[in-house]
């Protein structure tokens, strides 16, 4: 049974489509991240799953029960969904325990049971001794944990995270990431995690849905997203991948084919069934570029920038054959490249981006 099923969901505000036929299936107990630049529609998607926004078309069901479709919208308070808000949204006029117990109080759970469950939730996030505190007297990480405990206490079938780490400093982020992962392992709750931070998404999620301009670009495991992006958007968005024009020379054989890129012939990985074609695109990573000596290997160009970053420098390079393309790679110490210098580079590998899949 699917934990959450989003089928062809569309949301239009007037003329524009904030979401365009998005379909995502989240398995029961899965941790799925929705990743995308700001304005890609990920927050709208979360608000529709929670029930704050109605859908213009398509269908959303949670735990097998339809909750949203064009003419129907189960109100948020009847969905049994938990949300961890970006700014925690803890009620300042209630103590930590009251915050956590609110959902149970609304559901008229008996006092004794309520207290026991609040205690359990506090223990789950290691906050037992803070029950009587006010949210204003907690640190950012503690507030985050209270927010987590609050959404868990009602045992929701689905928990939505709305960029929960965006307001925390870098050190706290790392430790909260660990806590979220640990928490998911312990409870086995289905989680949908909205973020614009790809490192966060990669670290936490079983699968990642990449969105852009209201459309689903690719839904895959972090490994697959990195190594086998389905289109140019994903290729360039994930880890600053470089997209280069190429001609496919041979048909696919054992998962690879031969292409010509920047005048160099190269064997790249590809999907089954690829055939020779012109105007293809390949994606390559900084680690797949290396400097070469000698005049015949690789391709020539000039270094446009060299930025030292401690231990290594990021080198930006403009090939002669494609003046508008910027390649970048890291050169570890000792750094020898300087801006304006002529050099030759070589690609070592890459991925052939499949044809005709969206942007």
């Amino acid at each position, binding site marked *: 049974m699917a934990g959450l099923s989003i089928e062809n969901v569309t949301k239009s505000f007037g003329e524009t489509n904030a979401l365009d036929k998005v379909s995502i299936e989240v398995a029961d107990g899965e941790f799925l991240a929705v990743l995308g630049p700001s304005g890609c529609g990920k927050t709208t998607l979360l608000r529709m799953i*929670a*029930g*704050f926004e109605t859908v213009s078309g398509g269908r959303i069901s949670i735990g097998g029960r339809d909750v949203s479709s064009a003419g*129907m*919208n*189960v*109100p*948020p*308070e*009847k*969905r*049994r*969904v*938990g*949300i961890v*808000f*970006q*700014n925690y*949204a*803890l*009620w*300042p*006029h209630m103590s930590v325990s009251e915050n956590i117990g*609110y*959902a149970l109080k*609304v*559901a008229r759970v008996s006092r004794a049971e309520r207290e026991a469950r609040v205690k359990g939730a506090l223990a789950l996030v290691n906050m037992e001794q803070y029950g009587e505190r006010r949210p204003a007297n907690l640190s950012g990480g503690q507030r985050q944990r209270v927010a987590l405990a*609050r*959404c868990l206490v*009602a045992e929701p079938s689905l928990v939505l995270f709305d960029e929960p780490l965006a307001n925390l400093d870098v050190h706290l982020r790392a430790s909260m990431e660990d806590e979220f992962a640990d928490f998911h392992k312990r409870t086995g709750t289905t989680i949908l995690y909205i973020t614009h931070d790809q490192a966060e998404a990669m670290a936490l999620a079983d699968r990642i849905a990449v969105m852009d301009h209201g459309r689903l670009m690719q839904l895959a495991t972090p490994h697959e997203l990195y190594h086998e992006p389905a289109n140019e958007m994903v290729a360039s968005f994930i880890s600053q991948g470089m997209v280069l024009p190429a001609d496919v020379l041979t048909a696919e054989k054992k998962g690879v084919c031969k292409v010509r890129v920047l005048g160099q012939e190269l064997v790249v990985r590809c999907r089954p069934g690829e055939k020779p074609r012109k105007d293809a695109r390949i994606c390559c990573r900084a680690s797949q570029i290396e400097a070469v000596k000698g005049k015949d290997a690789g391709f020539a160009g000039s270094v446009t920038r060299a930025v030292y970053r401690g231990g290594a420098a990021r080198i930006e390079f403009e090939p002669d054959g494609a003046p508008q393309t910027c390649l970048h790679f890291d050169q570890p110490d000792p750094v020898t490249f300087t801006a304006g210098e002529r050099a030759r580079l070589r690609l070592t590998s890459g991925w052939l981006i499949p044809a005709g899949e969206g942007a």
Partner: protein
Amino acid sequence: MSFAFKERQGQGMALTAGIVAIIVVFSLLPMARLLQEVVLPGGRFSLDVIRAGLVSNTTWVATWNTLCVGLGGTLFALVLGVAVAILVSLSDVRQRQAFVLCFVTPLMIAPQVTALAWLQLFGPSSPMLNLLGVAPPIGTPNPLYSPEGIVLLLGIQYAPLVFLIVRAGLRKLPRELVEAAQSSGAGWLTVLRTIILPLMTPSIVGAAALTFVSCVGNFGIPAFLGIPANYLVLPTLIYQRLAGGGPAVLSEVAFLSVLIGIIAMVGIVLQDRISKRRDFRITSTSLPAAPYHLGAWRLPVEIGMWALIIIILVLPLLGLILTSLVRGYGVTLSAETATLENYRFVVLEHAAASRAFINSLYLSATAAVFAVFVAIPLAYVIAWGKQRWIKALNLAVELPYALPGVVLAIASLLLFLKPMPITGIQIYNTVWIILYAYLARFLVLAVRPTVTGYFQLDRALEEAAQVAGAGLFTRMRTIIFPLIAPVAIAGGLLIFMTALCELTVSALLWSSGSETIGVVIFSFEQGGDSKYAAAVSAIMVATTFLLMLFASLFAKRLPDGVLPWRD
């Protein structure tokens, strides 16, 4: 469709229906009734009322006078308010907080109390002038009984209003705009003339419109200063007609009050036109401009500012207190003759006065509490609602307050002169009609700050409760009410202070047994008992100060600008 869905719809619809009902009863109904009386007297279309009003010479004289004191008072208030706002916001004068408190206080004091205080300051029987031995001889008229006197007092009463609006505008002035002009070589006065004042046009014009409406609708000041000189403006003309002719002249005064309404509307429309003529939008937000160093001028300017406070606040209040201590007309005040007898008389002995204290307390407290409880759901819909038409109804809430009080008073009279249909309840000539008018008139004073409060509140707090399973009414009770209550209550306190000494509405609606404090002060003064009027006024001023102090106690929990006297 689930049962749950219907239940939520039901709560939402109940909320909307309640709000619409309140707006209809307290805003649309009285206004519609007033227009009906003018255009459709007795249910048939007729222009007789309008024709009769237009040919009457008194109408024209009063209209002309209204325009004169309205424009004069506005101009004076603008000059004073803008000058003070610029000095306080853009220069390095010291003791700003205390100065703002003192300067804004006249706005918190009822106009008729201001008028009374000033009268006590200048007349032949002025205890202060007599103490100093410079009083004019007995028999000379008080110089304030004149149009100039009215303009002066209107200006002082509403200069704080201008100040507050322009100050708010100046706070948003980004310092880059000033610094860019300075680095282009402009001196401070040039910057003021070419950059600051033009950018402040919307604030200044908005303040002018609001002040004009307030001046035109003011009853207390022209009643105290104009009636003795037989200088009538429209509100006082309406009062005199109604006092002399009773309900028989209702159609006539309805026309006059619509006339005031039209004059006020012209002011508002004009303001709208002027602000839309050019683009005054300030796009960036940043720190306020660095204060201008007055240098050697700082001390003289500061002395001038505090002298202003002494003139507009300290002296009149002193005059008021001294008069309240006088034994009788003509008795010179000294340490031996000073008495508290007047206070004892108005509090304990005078039946109408002691009734009025009770009445006004009940009326203003009820109006304040009602407004707080209505403002919270009403502002919720205005601030967070999705329906557009509700926002249009927001204008309807503003209407009874935006239009002069006389207009609403006459509308209430017309609405309740006959017993209410079906129930047959008669509230005319009771305290209830005053309560109705207060509720209608002052509701917006609580709604405005509450809407601001909602905009500053994170909506996620409500959404978190919603996903926790709480329905609309549960969320209102457990989440929204506790969070928004401080702002709404501060608004309620403003209503309480304003309604406590209210005169304009109650002067037209009171009857024996339902006197208000404003009416009692007015009656004492009309009957020549200035010392009693002064005693009641002094008590009210003291109460006002206490309330301001009390409200300031929880100022930290309120958004900026909710308490006008806090800088």
